[in-house]
């Protein structure tokens, strides 16, 4: 098998979508490219993937990757409910959702939190640039306090931390990354795809047109200069690719490494860096976000992880056959059943 062909016999090319229509250099395109990389690498069967988005620059991006997957560009901020319905219809699907800070943090904040609370199994990527792009440069709910933009001036309101919102809503996989950090994004994307439940990836993704000044917390120059990774990672997959014994990892020193086993049997090994953060502890996760806020740090990595709790699908006790595949008498009880029912109303 040629090196660039995955286990499904597909080249990376096959995982591409239409050409991007975003501004040249947009952080979102880096994320799309990483999704293509990872889908190809793990051998994701595209027919079984659904791509979901709301409205905004970020929400356009599902057109730019995995062109052979069904996709739904829905309405502003309400993608989570569409995703919920789609996963109810067919729990075998793999859902990759893309949203932005306007879509998720403002109009969609309620649906975001309720999606997480229900633990709908999906990867939820927020392409977070702290500004509205398509409507030309308004502040978003994640714009940093003190941020300045050309037309609207100074933002005097505190920003929402969408990772913290996810944790308080009961999310079991919460990560933050930077679209300029390709390596970390790839690892976290793979881990998110292996997670059972809602996996949130809040990726700071600079807007090169409206919010890329060096003093903006969500710009490339700022990110490049200030990103502090919480961990170094190895992702050791089993679900989608070959056996784990083919992968070799450098041993981390004792006490520095944590192995987190994912739902599908793969695991992620993290080496703690300066902040010594243990993502398995909720208090620590909230503390590290609070520290980042107070000290104005750009911390990235796996913020919080817990053993998957039951997903929405689990709580409904529905048949394991996807509801969308049911036919005939599974959908319609017999005439005798109706007669019996009618007698109970007589």
């Amino acid at each position: 098998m040629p090196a660039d062909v995955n286990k499904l016999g597909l080249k990376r090319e096959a995982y591409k979508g239409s050409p991007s229509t975003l501004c040249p250099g947009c952080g979102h395109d880096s994320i799309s490219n990483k999704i293509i990389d990872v889908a190809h690498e793990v051998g994701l069967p595209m027919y079984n993937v659904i791509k979901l988005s709301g409205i905004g620059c970020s929400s356009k991006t599902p057109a730019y990757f995995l062109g052979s997957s069904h996709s739904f560009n829905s309405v502003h901020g309400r993608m989570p409910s569409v995703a919920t319905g789609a996963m109810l219809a067919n729990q075998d699907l793999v859902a990759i959702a893309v949203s932005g800070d306007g879509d998720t943090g403002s109009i969609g904040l309620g649906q975001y939190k309720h999606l997480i609370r229900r633990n709908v199994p999906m990867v939820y990527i927020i392409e977070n640039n702290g500004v509205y792009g398509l409507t030309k440069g308004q502040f978003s709910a994640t714009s940093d306090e003190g941020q300045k933009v050309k037309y609207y001036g100074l933002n005097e309101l505190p920003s929402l931390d969408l990772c913290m919102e996810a944790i308080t809503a009961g999310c079991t996989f919460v990560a933050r990354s930077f679209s300029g950090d390709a390596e970390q994004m790839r690892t976290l994307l793979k881990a998110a795809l292996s997670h059972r439940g809602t996996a949130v990836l809040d990726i700071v993704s600079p807007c090169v047109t409206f919010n890329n000044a060096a003093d903006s917390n969500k710009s490339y120059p700022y990110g490049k200069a200030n990103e502090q990774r919480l961990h170094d990672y190895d992702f050791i997959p089993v679900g989608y690719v070959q056996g784990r014994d083919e992968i070799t990892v450098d041993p981390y020193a004792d006490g520095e490494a944590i192995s987190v086993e994912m739902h599908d049997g793969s695991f992620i090994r993290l080496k703690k860096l300066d902040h010594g953060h243990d993502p398995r502890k909720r208090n620590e996760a909230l503390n590290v976000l609070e520290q980042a806020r107070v000290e104005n740090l750009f911390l990235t990595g796996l913020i919080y992880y817990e053993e998957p709790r039951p997903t929405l699908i689990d709580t409904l006790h529905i048949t394991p056959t996807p509801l969308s595949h049911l036919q005939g008498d599974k959908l319609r009880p017999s005439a005798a059943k109706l007669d019996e029912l009618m007698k109970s109303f007589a």
Partner: protein
Amino acid sequence: MTLEMQAGAETQQRSFVNDFTLMVATKNGSGSQTSNLVLIRSLFRMGIPVSGKNLFPSNIKGLPTWYSIRASKDGYIGRRPTAEVVVAFNELTAAEDILNLPPGGMLIIPADWKWGKTRDDVTWHEVPIKAILTQEKIEPDFRERITNMIYVGVCCYLFDISLEIAYLALLDQFNGKKKPADMNFGVIKRAYEWATENLAKDTRFRFEQLNQTEGKILIDGNTAGALGSLFGGVTVAAWYPITPSTSVIDGVLDHKSIRNDPETGESTVAVVQAEDELAAVGMIIGAGWAGARSMTATSGPGISLMAEFVGLAYFAEIPCVIWDITRMGPSTGLPTRTSQGDLLFIHFLSHGDTRQVVLLPGSVAECFEFGWRAFEEAERLQMPIFVMSDLDLGMNLWLSEPFAYPEQPINRGKTLDKLSLEEFFAEHGEWYRYKDYDGDGVGYRTIPGIDHPRAAYFTRGTGHTEKATYSERGDDWVKNLSRIERKINDARATLPQPIIDHDPAKKIGIISYGSNDASIVEARDLLAAENLHTNYLRVRSLPLAQSVIDFVLSHDSVYVAENNFDGQMAQLLRMEIPQDNRHMKSLSLGDTLPMTADWLYSKIVEQEKQHAR
């Protein structure tokens, strides 16, 4: 016409046997619903056509509530404006309740209030509540709720309902559980005995055994709709509680076990309570897109919130079913009062050029039928389907024939699976999601998860070509809109067609829809007795069928009777009929209560008199 019950003469002449209305006035949350249902079920068991209407407040406990029970030997089940017998068990409303009694009527009131007889032209029965209750050993916790069984016992005696029948009705009400039935029956029996010793029967008001309910059922429209949905193959229901629609989803929850997988016992129906109506409709759109038969139930305020999403589903052509159990709106105030005020709103719901399909059930049997049929239409037309019922039809009990089993097997419409997609490619050499291959405006859709490299398409609202690619070209969009227009116009002839009773010799036509049917049937008989012979067309779906327009044009005078203030169906007809239609009159009500035959009768008589002049 108001019921002419002049003291003496009229009441002596008219027979009230199996033909009067009993109004029970109580406090909300006092348990009176059980008592009222025992009376209704007793009459039903006696074979007497009966209907019940609950006029309840937006409140959990304490505010006044009225329940009217109509017995009609002629089988009329619409609301009547007058009750000949009033059970005044709410001190706060008693003064007005007494005032509303027609001369010659009958009052049943607690003696404990020491009200004092305020009218001489009605039969006045005072019943000592506390004295009867203390004879029966009732635990304090149950005392308040069981008080209302006293009027059941008194009515049983006064109107000749046997205690055996009342007991069976109690068992019906408590699902066969003897313990609560016995406890309640003890009070009914005591009250019956007290009445036997102390009250003189007025034999004008009594019930006699009939055989007109044999084989029939008593059910509310929301439960009927829920059952229809379950027989229609609903797999995903998402909702947010709102009066008066909540019992649609409660009905799905209560009965969804009939859809359990016989092999595993697992459910084939997912029901999710959403955080709001925005999420509820989003979920059913996502589910419909991914191949579920999905539904929600709501009322006007919820419809408002769903407006944007429904437009997306309309243009992305995603099947789903939305029940609108209409009520007065908006906001708080009259959420427990009926209305047909959402008609135009849902027909044209959302931004852009939308014309939604609306099914209009006129009976509980049609609630069942449209329950399953809505899914067929949604998948056939690939769009949201509204079913507009109302509080009166949805929440009150109606007498009906048992429901008919769906006459056609489930049809998923033009939905391609792996095999049929391959066949499609073999035949056409291509497949494009929004291309009109059959000339009926409906494309072929795939659902996610089909193991085929060319099954996928990109779903968005506006701005797509027939290939489901992105386009900002005006001609692409006009082409798309023209196809959708074709689809909607074709639907006029294929959706449930109007029920028409048309004799060309008759010159007066009545057009109506929905829950008004029961009262229109009765009003036509009243009119016929006055030599005003009418034809009747009941609209069952929007967009309007051609036969509705033909009906308007083939009469000298046409009355469009409906229960909203603005006469919305009449407005729609005016929009759709280019010819002179000044002979068409809007008779619109919108007074928060179900339409009565008397109202419609008097309106038409008044109009026809003007005509004659």
